[in-house]
């Protein structure tokens, strides 16, 4: 076996080992799938979010498999919107006085259809169809494709 061949094989071995190590590290560090809540049921700080927890014109943020959802009750209707501001990721809240969804970070405003009323956000909030039963409020589907 020539020296060149041995060196080549050693080099190949070293590169392979390094690639294997880097691949292992990358796989190890790759973000794992799965959010805080694996179910379509909305879960608040106290547990499953019940429809009765919301009075008329009140809003609350809860978690589900779809992420953070803002739920606003308007009479008998439960309106669902993605609760993450499309500007820089803060959680929005419902302001009954102004009748707008507001972001406390930089003042972005949305209406109950998720449309931007005031920047700096540019993209609308996603709309979520909700349903309610005795066990709580659940996500049915996203209304925007």
């Amino acid at each position, binding site marked *: 076996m020539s020296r060149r061949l041995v060196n080549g094989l050693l080099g190949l071995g070293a590169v392979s080992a390094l690639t294997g190590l880097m691949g292992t590290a990358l796989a190890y560090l790759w973000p*794992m799938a799965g959010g805080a809540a694996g179910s379509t049921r909305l879960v608040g700080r106290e547990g499953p979010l019940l429809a009765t927890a919301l009075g008329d014109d009140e809003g609350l943020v809860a978690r589900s498999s779809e992420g953070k959802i803002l739920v606003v009750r308007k009479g008998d209707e439960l309106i669902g919107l993605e609760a993450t501001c499309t500007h820089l990721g803060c*959680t929005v809240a419902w302001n009954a006085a102004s009748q707008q969804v507001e972001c406390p970070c*930089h003042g972005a405003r949305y209406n109950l259809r998720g449309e931007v009323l005031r920047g700096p956000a540019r993209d609308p909030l996603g709309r979520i169809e909700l349903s309610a039963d005795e066990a709580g409020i659940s996500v049915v589907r996203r209304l925007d494709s």
Partner: protein
Amino acid sequence: MRSPVRQLWRWLDDRLNLEPLRNALSENLRKPVPIHVNWLFTLGSVLIALLTVQLLTGLLLMVYYKPSAQEAYGSIELITNEVPMGWFVRSLHNWGSHLIVIIALLHMVRVIIYGGYKRPREVTWIIGVLLLAVILGFGFTGYLLPWDQVAYWGTVVATEAPASIPVVGPLTQQFMIGGTEVADPTLGRFYVVHVFLLPLVLLGLMGLHLILIRYQGISSLKRTDEEEPTAEEISGEGGKPFVPYHALKDLTSVYLALGVLVTLALVFQAHIGDPADSLVTPVGIKPEWYFLPAYQLLKYVPEVVGVQVPPLFLLLLLALPLVIDTSPERHPRRRVGVLAGSLVVALVVLMLGILGHLSETTQTFMGTSYHFDLLGWPHLVADGTATVEVM
């Protein structure tokens, strides 16, 4: 009878042949420094001292800190309220982080003024800029660790901005935070980077930086196309040996800086806010003061543009000796253009920082209240009640 220290030295020297190393080190430390070297040149030593304190207090905090979303806040409360002198250790670490950024920036300004980044010291400058990036990385990752509302939401905002970069942005963000939102995996990653990776990089870069400085010496004010002055020439012009003259200045500055640090830690103790709540964003979330200029800039330009400015700024600093200021002059009086340009940049950054601090707050000046809007523009508050808002 020889002293124990001399006996130990003799024992080690016999086995490791340390005498030549000692002689070389001694000769190097007694090299004269140029006569223009003044108290501003002690900032580097002050930085080393502050970083050492930061490392030591960080090690102590690690004994009780728990890097999980469920336990982090409680462990900080334990350190602050129950561990003996824990509040002091935490305060030192907190204030140390602010002072380190201030001194690093002042040190950098001094180097710029005296042209210390010029040939043949470009590598030392490049390592220095990388060190600044590492220091800012410490601030960025350490900010999250208390896991209170300010820490959590400040990190949400800071990690959301890079997601606006096309193609690689969302993937980069997810990799950085370990998922689709700031949560337990984020804390784990930031903790490892903060307590292991960055200290390792810092020690390596600092070692190189110091070796190069001792090896090349402090730069003179001569042109770069002239021969570097010899030790005899520097002595002839009145330059004194580093040890003991300048070393004593270094020690004095270090002593004063540590005094300031301890005073701040004692008088203004580090506090912790409300525990992080991912469902509720508090009003008025802002990053630490040294990230305020970048944060404020995001309000004036699209995120995809604004988020690229900080790394471009670092690239600009790296390019200073290589592309921007390649003239052979070192003396400040013969580099007025570069210094004026640097001053303008510094003032713009400072202005953005001030606007960032004032934005979304109400301040009272001479009995009149002003509300500063998102962009930092002041609006008169009528009768202290209604706020005039301009879209």
